[in-house]
């Protein structure tokens, strides 16, 4: 019997301060493994879900797919595998981040924490059991899966707020503020709006700083808020809401669409008027491109899609700047999310027999 080897403790290297060298080298490596357009072409040509799984198993998604297809070779299991992969990739990126990048990235990814908290709030409002909602949580932000599960196990919204408060999470503040009004009116949207407003205000404050990396993250967040406000104002057009009612839906933290412009847009008579008003901003072009399609389909989702594409381009653009900056990380995270969305579109499309042409239209290719 060979002598026992001394136990070696593997200490994972984590860069400190603002050292982006190691972090960006690892992320470049990960970026090189993103799927190419040619892979999607091959995937679109797949006959069925089985053939698609066979192709995907040879990629980065292999380990998660192998785990999930034990439960069946279905589109749902592939979807779950994609979610698992996205979660582990985002966690991996966070583990490579230096201190500054951790703050910036967790702030931007806080939208996923916001999503999870809102999902739990919705479920508690409907008095659902934790087991019913665990599959609907996605741990890619600051909150881990265990945190999310613990929050989901709270008996009611008050219990959830208390737990968030105990953990010192920012979402407790807006929830606690509107809780009495919610308990009186039973209006779920009060809680959701308070959470949305608070998160974007909190994130904008947290990203304030004179350094270029802060500015990049701040600009990207502002673009997200602007696109959301623009879209909300378009959705409010036919609602005939009074200005003070419409103001409830405004989210702070944008660069172009401030509250005054939001209110002005939301009481306009039609989309053309909104379009003319924002024509000279950076959102004019994507809206202009979608206008024709909107006339054909009459669906607001056309604008949403155009603004999402714009946002993805913005995210990818951040990666083209300083090679030792936060841009590369933001760009990679959004590229990964984009890749997962595209895979979902193809998998879902093939499983429901969607024509290839229609799937190609839905793919987000930048």
């Amino acid at each position, binding site marked *: 019997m060979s002598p026992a080897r001394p136990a070696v403790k593997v200490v994972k290297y984590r860069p400190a301060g603002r050292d982006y060298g190691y972090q960006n080298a690892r992320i470049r490596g990960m970026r090189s493994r993103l799927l190419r357009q040619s892979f999607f072409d091959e995937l679109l040509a797949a006959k069925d879900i089985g053939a698609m799984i066979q192709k995907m198993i040879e990629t980065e998604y292999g380990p998660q797919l192998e785990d999930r297809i034990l439960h069946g070779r279905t589109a749902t299991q592939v979807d779950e595998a994609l*979610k698992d992969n996205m979660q582990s990739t985002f966690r991996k990126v966070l583990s490579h981040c230096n201190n500054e990048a951790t703050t910036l990235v967790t702030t931007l990814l806080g939208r996923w924490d916001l999503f999870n908290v809102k999902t739990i709030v919705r479920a508690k409002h409907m008095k659902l059991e934790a087991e019913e909602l665990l*599959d*609907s949580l996605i741990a890619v932000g600051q909150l881990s899966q265990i945190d999310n599960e613990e929050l989901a196990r709270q008996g009611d919204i008050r219990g959830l707020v208390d737990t968030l408060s105990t953990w010192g999470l920012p979402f407790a503040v807006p929830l606690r503020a509107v809780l009495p009004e919610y308990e009186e009116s039973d209006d779920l949207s009060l809680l*959701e709006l308070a959470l949305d407003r608070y998160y974007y205000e909190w994130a904008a404050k947290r990203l304030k700083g004179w350094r270029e990396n802060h500015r990049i993250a701040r600009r990207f967040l502002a673009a997200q808020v602007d696109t959301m406000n623009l879209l909300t104002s378009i959705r409010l057009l036919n609602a005939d809401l009074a200005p003070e009612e419409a103001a409830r839906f405004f989210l702070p933290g944008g660069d172009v669409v401030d509250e005054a412009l939001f209110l002005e847009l939301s009481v306009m008579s039609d989309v053309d008027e909104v379009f003319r008003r924002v024509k000279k901003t950076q959102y004019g072009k994507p809206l202009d491109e979608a206008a024709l399609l909107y006339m054909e389909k009459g669906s607001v989702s056309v604008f949403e899609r155009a603004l999402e594409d714009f946002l993805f381009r913005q995210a990818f653009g951040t990666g083209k700047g300083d090679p030792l900056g936060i841009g590369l990380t933001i760009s990679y995270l959004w590229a990964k999310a984009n890749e997962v969305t595209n895979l979902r579109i193809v998998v879902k499309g093939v499983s429901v027999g969607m024509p290839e042409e229609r799937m190609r239209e839905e793919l987000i290719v930048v």
Partner: protein
Amino acid sequence: MEEVRPTRSELLERKQQITLAEQGMDLLKQKRDALLIEFMSVMDETLRLSSDLQRTTNEAQYSLAIAKAVDGVVSVRSAAFATRGEITIDMTGTKIMGISVPVVTKGESPLRTSFTRGYAITGVSSRIDETADKFERILDVIIEYADIETRLKRLGEEIQKTNRRVNALEQITVPSLREQVAYIRQALDERAREDLFRLKKVKKKIEQKKSAHGS
């Protein structure tokens, strides 16, 4: 054939029964024709609603597939948590040509707006919102369809029932009564002929007796 007494009163009774059965048959035929007219108009409406339901369902399923693909199942499920609710349906009844038909009406319209679904629109994509809208439209059509389909079924059952009655009268009751009338007539004629023969015989015998006494 059931036991028939071949009497004149029975003949009259059977004749009356035939007249009554023929009158009933005509009335039932008229009822059947009126029901058929009603059935056809309900059928047109059912077909319209059925194709409406088919189209709405296809559109909704397609929207759901797109929403699940682009926003993810997780987002769709999360939004669905907020929109759970109940639908109230009123069940009453009415009469069409004397037939009781249940009437299904919406207690409260299942159609909601983006602001009354429960969630805040800032956190739910317009794709998911539009999908919810399309599924609510399905519910709306389903309730209308349930009402019209029940009406169609009841009318169909009643037409079948009426048809069976007409056929029974036309093919069984009236022919059987006619047979009975014919049988009674035949029996009465037979009896009349026998009486005549007997009377002739009696007359002949009386005449023979008279001639024997005379000679």
